[in-house]
């Protein structure tokens, strides 16, 4: 029997992206540049996070015309962002044929209480998480891939590091808990108990886990890989840099050779200026994108 949109197929799609770089693009031209630089997928959105941060206003799903044009010009997978809780944007992206949907805190949430019920879709979803409980809630709702939230649009990797260390640390912690203490951990962190049991037994998240939010240099990408993520999303970091093509290629190479300092040194030279960075404590807590969703 042939079945489409199964959990294996959704989760498996993310497995194929591992060790790769998914790049934010806003135009077909940028998508083409990303593909030529060796991106394993592109993420279509209206504006990159640093522009959303600067412009303010409501950030929505990208114009379907643009998403369609991006799908027409590249052969690699095309992902697109939908607002948290906006299941109609997600349905539209699914109908367009987007390969993965990011229910993303980078866009203005459409629902402050409920995320999308993602199991109902054939298209797979990726969601952001800052800790194990949040990651497992999203997976329980049907996310077939997780990424750190980080703090998008800042060019500052500190929050992505915090979130990756937190998730990995909590996984190690629950692995060592006696079974009778797991329910209390589930209660405290809001982690669905069944998934928590699975994590405690297997010592890893049940889906692929990427890094995102603030990655701006090859060294940032390699740092996240060494901290244990499976691949990286780069948002503003590429097209807000002085020389996007060179930087994109270097970040791709750094994600493959993350453990080889010699190669990292070679690819980190002559890149031109990185995107401007931002101190996280300069952003008021209520303006931090990572606080969106729960």
């Amino acid at each position, binding site marked *: 029997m042939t079945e489409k949109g199964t959990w294996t*197929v959704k989760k498996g*799609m993310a497995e194929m992206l591992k*060790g790769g770089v998914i790049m934010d693009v806003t135009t077909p031209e940028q998508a083409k540049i990303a593909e030529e630089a*060796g991106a394993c997928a592109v993420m279509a959105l209206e504006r990159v996070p640093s522009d959303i941060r600067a412009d303010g206003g409501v950030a929505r799903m990208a114009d379907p015309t643009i998403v369609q044009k991006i799908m027409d010009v590249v052969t*690699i997978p095309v992902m697109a962002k939908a607002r948290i809780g906006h299941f109609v944007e997600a349905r539209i992206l699914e109908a367009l*044929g987007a390969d993965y949907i990011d229910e993303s805190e980078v866009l203005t949430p459409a629902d402050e209480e409920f995320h999308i019920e993602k199991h109902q879709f054939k298209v797979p979803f990726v969601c952001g998480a800052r800790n194990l409980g949040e990651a497992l809630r999203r997976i329980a709702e049907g996310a077939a891939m997780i990424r750190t939230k980080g703090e998008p649009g800042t060019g500052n990797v500190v929050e992505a590091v915090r979130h990756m260390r937190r998730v990995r640390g909590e996984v190690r912690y629950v692995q060592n808990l006696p079974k009778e203490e797991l329910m209390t951990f589930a209660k405290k962190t809001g982690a669905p108990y069944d998934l928590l049991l699975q994590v405690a037994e297997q010592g890893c998240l049940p889906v692929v886990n990427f890094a995102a939010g603030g990655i701006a240099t090859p060294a940032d990408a390699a740092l996240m890989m060494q901290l244990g993520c499976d691949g990286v999303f780069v948002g503003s970091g590429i097209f807000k840099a002085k020389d996007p093509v060179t930087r994109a290629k270097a970040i*791709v190479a750094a994600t493959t050779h993350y453990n080889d300092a010699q190669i990292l040194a070679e690819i980190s030279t002559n890149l031109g200026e990185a995107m401007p960075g931002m101190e996280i404590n300069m952003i008021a807590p209520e303006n931090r994108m990572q606080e969106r969703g729960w």
Partner: protein
Amino acid sequence: MLVGVLALQGAFREHEKILQSCGANTRQVRLPQHLAGLDALVIPGGESTAIGKLLVKYHLLAPIKELGQKGLPVFGTCAGLILLAKKIAGANQPALQLMDIAVARNAFGRQVDSFETGLTIPALGEPDYQAVFIRAPYIISVEPGVEVMATYQNKIVLARQNNFLAAAFHPELTNDLRLHQYFLEMIIN
């Protein structure tokens, strides 16, 4: 037995796990020096364009091609099949071009059309093999000397040519060891 798994991008760890379950030792291949002393090589699923670019950039394309021509067993899955094909329809991307086959990329459609199905593979016997197809390619045509090992809806999805084995689906995503065992037997023979 030491099997290299090309680890530039994609699902290389899954292949390693299965190969290890079958009793083989594995090594991740990222640079030409990692090819020394291998008994075989696996090219995993992933993005064939991304993997192809890194093959060129890190000088792996020519040495792998040469080893293949000298008889090194190579098993490619999905992106790996694309990289093994002599001809890729409508694309001009770097590839190893070791097998006399022509392939079409993303030939079953986009991710929403990705599927799993029970596949009859006579060489593996009963029961059917649960095959996972993700934005999968298929083989459009084969030249003489290529053995067609499985088809799905009349499309070739598994083929062998001497020391080369290529699957359009992802044996690394299932717990069925039979196809990897078949490949390991190819190495011994």
